[in-house]
């Protein structure tokens, strides 16, 4: 199953997503948690050590491209196979959850776009 979590800022999306991911993993599900927040902190809500969390390499922006069709609808594409991205950038979180950071805004992007 593919579950997305949304809501207004501060509503507790990350806390709920982190708890849910670990509970699903404990129930025997293979869980890939994707933090798409430009300012990500799902790692901490998953219970990763803060120093380890700070060292996770985000998936490079160049791997992901956004396209817009004639109706103005956006879609997301990847230039690298998803399996390869998970193998190279997936971080091990408690209970066997794998975490990917996608979309983190880097300091050199501040003010751009």
């Amino acid at each position: 199953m593919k579950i997305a979590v949304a809501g207004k800022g501060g509503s507790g999306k990350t806390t709920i997503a982190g708890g849910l991911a670990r509970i699903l993993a404990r129930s025997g599900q293979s869980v890939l948690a994707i933090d798409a927040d430009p300012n990500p902190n799902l790692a901490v809500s998953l219970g990763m050590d803060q120093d380890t969390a700070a060292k996770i390499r985000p998936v490079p922006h160049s791997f992901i491209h956004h396209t817009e069709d004639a109706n103005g609808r956006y879609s997301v594409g990847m230039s690298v196979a998803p399996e390869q991205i998970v193998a190279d950038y997936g971080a091990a979180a408690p209970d066997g959850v794998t975490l990917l950071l996608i979309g983190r805004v880097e300091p050199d992007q501040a003010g751009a776009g």
Partner: protein
Amino acid sequence: MEAGLEHLKRGTLEHAETLLIVVEPYFKSLEAAGRIAELARNLGVPEVYAVANKVQSERDETAIREYCAACQLDVLAIVPHDADVAEAERQGRAVLDIAPDANAVAELTDLANHLMSNSVQSATGQVATDTVPA
């Protein structure tokens, strides 16, 4: 545009099967949830639900249930306001680790069981967060 909707518009959600919209018991949060639900349905997300969070009273729960009913949004879980969650946030740790018996954890466990029983059995579960900048 309301904060966060640009993420949905960007197509991040196009492959999601289930969207959980986390909602707090105050009007702006409910209003945002209603808009997110409408957008997600327009994008073709098959299952869109609300998850109430930080609920402190019956009045809070009623407010969320009434607003969500008006938006045709089922409320899958009522996660209570929980001092253990607040403490975990303070410490930068997971509530599962510092207070595994917290009420909020019990409610999330029920939610996880519900999601698993409703989904087609699959070898791979994915939890994606499509998050709103604070």
